């Protein structure tokens, strides 16, 4: 699965995206994985999550072909 970072969270991880070779995980597990890779990326803790461009909840399942995005609080407009 592909994992995307934006804005302040991208600054914290130092990358736009990472790939996790995994068949299946909950959103919560993906979040834990990101924190294990980037312990200082604290924004991921309060980031909204989206899978394939739709908001998801913590217990939803992510599959190998999916794209997960962690979205810091938005500030458009």
């Amino acid at each position: 699965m592909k994992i995307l970072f934006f804005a302040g969270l991208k600054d914290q991880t130092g990358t736009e995206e990472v790939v996790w070779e995994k068949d299946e995980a909950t959103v919560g597990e993906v979040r834990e994985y990101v924190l294990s890779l980037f312990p200082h990326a604290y924004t991921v803790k309060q980031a909204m999550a989206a899978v394939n461009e739709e908001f998801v909840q913590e217990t939803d399942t992510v599959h190998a072909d999916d794209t997960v995005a962690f979205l810091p609080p938005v500030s458009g407009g």
Partner: protein
Amino acid sequence: MENKRYYITDSPLNPLELQQLVTKPEAGAVNCFIGTVREFTKGRRTLYLTYEAYEKMAEKKLAQIGSEIQEKWEETECAIAHRTGRLDISEAAVVIAVSSPHRQAAMEASSYAIERIKEIVPIWKKEQWEDGTAWIGDQLEKNRYPRGGPGKEELEE
């Protein structure tokens, strides 16, 4: 970009283009809201802003807001564009155009659109001041996601 009603672009926004997209014989009102880059916020001077978007999702979410509006206010037409990249003072960051048979719906829907943009559209603003820079977080201060995701209501299409 032609005829696309919901889009993210790094080019200057043209409010007239969006107005024209929503104009139709049935409309008696077009409301066009333009969010511009303000120089001073709480006494602090902004030099310029940088907007970043999760473009694909942002366009989907703008279109979703358009659908919500058409469901809530009958016979409205809607177009929304948001700019990314560097924006100088007074440049337009977002343009929302809504037409409706009667004026009240166009105005209420424009107001609804900008609130929803600040809730669900993945776009982020970075302020450049004279003495520093920072990504700006949730400005509504009413939408916190302690569990990392929006509530059920937010998830409905």
